[in-house]
């Protein structure tokens, strides 16, 4: 007692180990509960989709076009539309998004205008996707006269995910330690050489994560595409600049809205295809990221 407390004071430490450990246990329990709820939802969802969709998933489904007769219906036009849109969106957003992030993070001075710019980009990320659809309709479909083509859809989706990509890339650039920039500057590198040779390689895995998240969002998006004129019944492969097109989420939307149970099973099968596509895409990105971050560790 006397050894623990300074003379003339009461006991100064109350270890209370039991209570501290209990608090830790409760917290851990809550975390497990959250994970459990998520897992349960996922399993039920997957089970529901797979049990209904898998029986319909065959070569005919993957290579066929939508049809009124369910046994002949397929998702090929939607699958190709989704892949084409994904590639286009990636080609548009990657250079624009990363360049904007590099400018804002590495070049722009910290003044009022640039702070306003940053805040606005963050706000854009929260704008409902339907608003991008309206904007895309006005600008790309009507204004630029692109019509209801796949390219107009890709441009609209690009606008939608650019803020997300820019913010994620800025975060990745900001996470590169200042010491890395200084090391390059101290060797006589110009600003661009510092960015190109030191900062970008170090930020690449983080930027890639941003791209994965953004692409996943673009691929799963439905509402803005409906506005810019993606159609629901396409039996041909889309021509990006001339024809109508559809994508998987819209095909799913159409089939799922049909009261006949066979069509709902078709929707489940299409969801399965979309899920597999996402998993493949994410897996690919994780592989690339692992390669890029081989050397990274600080």
């Amino acid at each position: 007692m006397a050894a623990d407390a300074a003379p003339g004071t009461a006991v100064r430490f109350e270890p209370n180990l039991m209570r501290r450990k209990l608090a830790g246990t409760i917290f851990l329990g809550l975390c497990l509960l959250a994970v459990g709820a998520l897992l349960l939802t996922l399993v039920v969802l997957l089970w529901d989709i797979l049990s209904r969709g898998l029986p319909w998933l065959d070569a005919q489904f993957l290579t066929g076009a939508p049809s009124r007769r369910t046994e002949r219906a397929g998702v090929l036009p939607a699958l190709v539309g989704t892949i084409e849109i994904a590639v286009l969106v990636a080609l548009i957003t990657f250079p624009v998004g990363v360049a904007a992030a590099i400018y804002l993070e590495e070049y722009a001075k910290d003044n009022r205008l640039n702070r306003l710019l940053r805040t606005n980009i963050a706000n854009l990320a929260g704008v409902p996707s339907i608003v991008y659809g309206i904007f895309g309709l006005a600008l790309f479909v009507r204004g630029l006269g692109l019509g209801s083509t796949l390219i107009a859809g890709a441009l609209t989706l690009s606008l939608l995910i650019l803020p997300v990509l820019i913010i994620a890339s800025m975060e990745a650039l900001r996470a590169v330690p200042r010491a890395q920039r200084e090391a390059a500057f101290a060797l006589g590198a110009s600003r661009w050489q510092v960015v190109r040779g030191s900062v970008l390689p170090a930020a690449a895995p983080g930027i890639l994560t941003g791209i994965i998240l953004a692409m996943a969002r673009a691929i799963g998006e439905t509402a803005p595409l409906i506005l810019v004129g993606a159609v629901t019944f396409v039996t041909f492969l889309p021509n990006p600049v001339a024809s109508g097109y559809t994508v998987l989420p819209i095909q799913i939307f159409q089939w799922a809205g049909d009261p006949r149970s066979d069509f709902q099973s078709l929707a489940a099968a299409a969801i399965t295809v979309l899920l597999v596509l996402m998993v493949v895409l994410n897996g690919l990105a994780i592989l690339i990221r692992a390669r890029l971050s081989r050397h990274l560790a600080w």
Partner: protein
Amino acid sequence: MEKEPPVTLTSPTRAPNGSQSPGVPIRITASSDARRPSAPASSDASESATTIRLEGISCWYGGFRAIRDVSLDVERRRITALIGPSGCGKSTLLRTMNRMNELVPSFRLEGRVTFDGTDIYGRAVDPVVVRRRVGMVFQKPNPFPKSIYDNVAFGPRVNGFKGNLDELVERSLRRAALWDEVKDKVRESGLSLSGGQQQRLCIARTIATEPEVILMDEPCSALDPRATLQIEELMAELSRDYTIVIVTHNMQQAARASDTTIFMTMADDRAGYIVERGPTLRIFTNPEQRLTEDYVSGRFG
């Protein structure tokens, strides 16, 4: 150079375990003089003894004045140590010598910094050129997340090196006393090395751009005593060809490893200034100023 009194000699190579246990009085190494038995640097008539010269330097970060009216000369192919309490502006002063401070947006400098007579803040001078000739090693080892080879090759590459890169990388790594440890794994990540090896890699990286001056900002503060000793030996070796300015918190290090010591402290408004400068031996054994004496004897700071 003045005649120095005999002192206990502990050359770094012969130090028993590379570290000074606390409580042992500072021992002065004379190794720096041993390696240049008769050499006032000014004896070489072809070049002046001064490389970098600061004249009336004051620095501000925004409204805060970090350095007040500092002037000093850095002697060629010598090791100059900057010592002083935390926050007295040693690093800031060091960074004025290769224009690294400019990367801090609110930084402002007054005064003149010349390198071999040229004003390095002159209108016609590009900081990129200054930094290639005045290299810098940082407090925390900061290799790039690249291979050992690419770390060393970075500087030569960005500066348009046209010679044999393999040969330059090997020579730089040898010069930094790292080659034997890494020659079989130059393609592995620089971050796979130990802290001391990483710092020698950073020195090799600096040497590879063939600078004339190497600035070292507390290069050993993140290293263990053994690695510290290796860096100090390396510095002694490098000072035959390079001018070295080192900021250090470790007074034994300044005493062991430098030729000239500059003691800085800060005024009441926290602006740093130079209290005293002189041959290291004199600063540590016979300081003129009371403040210096208090600091080097460990009574404050």
